[in-house]
């Protein structure tokens, strides 16, 4: 699907990536996952946030890849890093040590409070679909100051009830973080290919705050498995500008050339 705004034509994935990138600042230290988060983080670094610090769980600190990595441990990440530490050190000193301001997460399922499932669909002992599992997600969800979620919006993914809660968002009733002595902020932003959502200040339920150009409220409602709420003032997400699109497309082109495919931008 592509959209044209002010003579600029872009895909829904490009809109999503640009919207996620805009949330990042020069002061952030990001724990980056492969796929959409990696594209968004590197786009931010290549545009408005050149001093953004990117860390990958392979132990690469402050890495500046010229192409998007296919895996979390690509050589490119190490060669362009300030330094590379062991994986235990990454999880002990850097993630658990709360050095990270933003953790990016996705998953197969998200609920209205930003809780995430990346483990199984169906029963754990006899799953319908066995997913990759937690990886770093479970502790990223509690160890980073804030969590940004990036996911494609459809009713199988945006569900009333998770099959399995791999990673804590605001908890099943939206209020569990404090009870679990988790003092980090939790999910603060949910960017999809249809809209941008933020948690309600009172209830922590994710509500739509802006809708991407060309998308309707009805589409958002239809794509959400719970009765989705809209903020009092819903805006239209500013469309990608030419500088953002150019940087993103250059990055994807370099990546495709380096890897022989555009798989760097695949979700997983």
């Amino acid at each position: 699907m592509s959209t044209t705004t002010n003579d600029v034509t872009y895909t829904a994935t490009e809109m999503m990536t640009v919207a996620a990138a805009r949330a990042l600042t020069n002061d952030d230290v990001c724990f980056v996952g492969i796929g959409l988060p990696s594209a968004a983080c590197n786009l931010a670094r290549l545009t408005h946030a050149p001093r953004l610090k990117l860390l990958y769980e392979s132990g690469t600190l402050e890495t500046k890849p010229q192409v998007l990595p296919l895996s979390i441990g690509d050589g490119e990440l190490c060669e362009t890093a300030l330094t590379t530490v062991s994986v235990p050190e990454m999880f002990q000193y850097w993630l658990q040590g709360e050095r990270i301001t933003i953790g990016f997460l996705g998953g197969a399922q998200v609920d209205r409070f930003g809780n995430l499932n990346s483990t199984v669909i169906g029963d754990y002992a006899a799953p319908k679909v066995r997913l990759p599992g937690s990886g770093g997600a479970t502790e990223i969800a509690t160890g980073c100051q804030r969590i940004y979620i990036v996911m494609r919006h459809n009713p199988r993914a945006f569900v009333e009830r998770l099959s399995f809660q791999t990673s804590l968002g605001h908890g099943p009733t939206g209020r569990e973080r404090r009870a679990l002595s988790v003092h980090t902020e939790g999910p603060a932003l949910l960017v999809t290919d249809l809209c941008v959502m933020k948690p309600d200040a009172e209830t922590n339920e994710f509500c739509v705050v802006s809708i991407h150009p060309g998308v309707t409220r009805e589409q958002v409602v239809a794509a959400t498995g719970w009765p989705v709420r809209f903020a009092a003032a819903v805006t239209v997400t500013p469309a990608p500008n030419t500088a953002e699109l150019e940087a993103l497309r250059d990055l994807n082109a370099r990546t495709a050339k380096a890897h022989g495919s555009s798989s760097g931008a695949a979700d997983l």
Partner: protein
Amino acid sequence: MSMFLSLKDAVARFVRSGDRVALEGFTHLIPFAAGHEIIRQRLTDLTLIRMTPDLLYDQMIGSGCAKKLIFSWGGNPGVGSLHRLREAVEKQWPAPLEIEEHSHSAMAHAYAAGAAGMPAAFFRGYRGSDLAKVNPNIRFITCPFTGESLAAVPALRPDVGIVHAQQADRDGNVRVSGIVGVQKEVVLASARVIVTVEEVVDRVADGGSNAVVLPSWTIDAIAVVPGGARPSYAHGYYQRDNAFYVAWDAISRDRDAFRQWIDTHVHGVAAEVR
């Protein structure tokens, strides 16, 4: 104290059916050659331990080597699912596969605890995760100073740890560069250790360099296997074969295509040549 052996002899001597075996390498330096030798020697009933079971464990599980998997993320990085792993879990083919599932942080802490001679690892983890409900090896303790609840998992102490590295010196000391993952931890946590290396050099370390060096007396066998991490990569030696990771998706979706691939590319190759 390490001795130089052929890969065939190293596996024959130090790996037994029924062992708890960890082949590690965090995307980088995955010991494919050693894993293929385990398949070739038709070892079975292994408990396979690995943070990121990927193509290599998909191949070993599909070949019937494993009875149990201890892991934290099972996928084909950047591509999709591991079809052999999924079929073992979802359809018990070629055999049922017991799984013990953790998070990366837990596995990393558990290897470090194994290396450090601890019975368990203690960390801030698993808060609000259902993993603690399905894995009885995830427990909690109370901090004796703050009263806070902290996660505990048993230390990982494999019977055999296998890693690939860039270099060994003639005395059998090994050096790892680039993304070092949990290579040091799995070597130090394991009762028996096999390291495959790209090459043998005169010196693996210089004074004051703080390199990741594993002394010879932490290793049992070293096998010189150039390309031993392909299709993964070895920093400074060769790149990751990304096309193979993509191609594996189709090969591994189909049982027959998978069997044929293993017959041709594993059983059909001698250990020394691969």
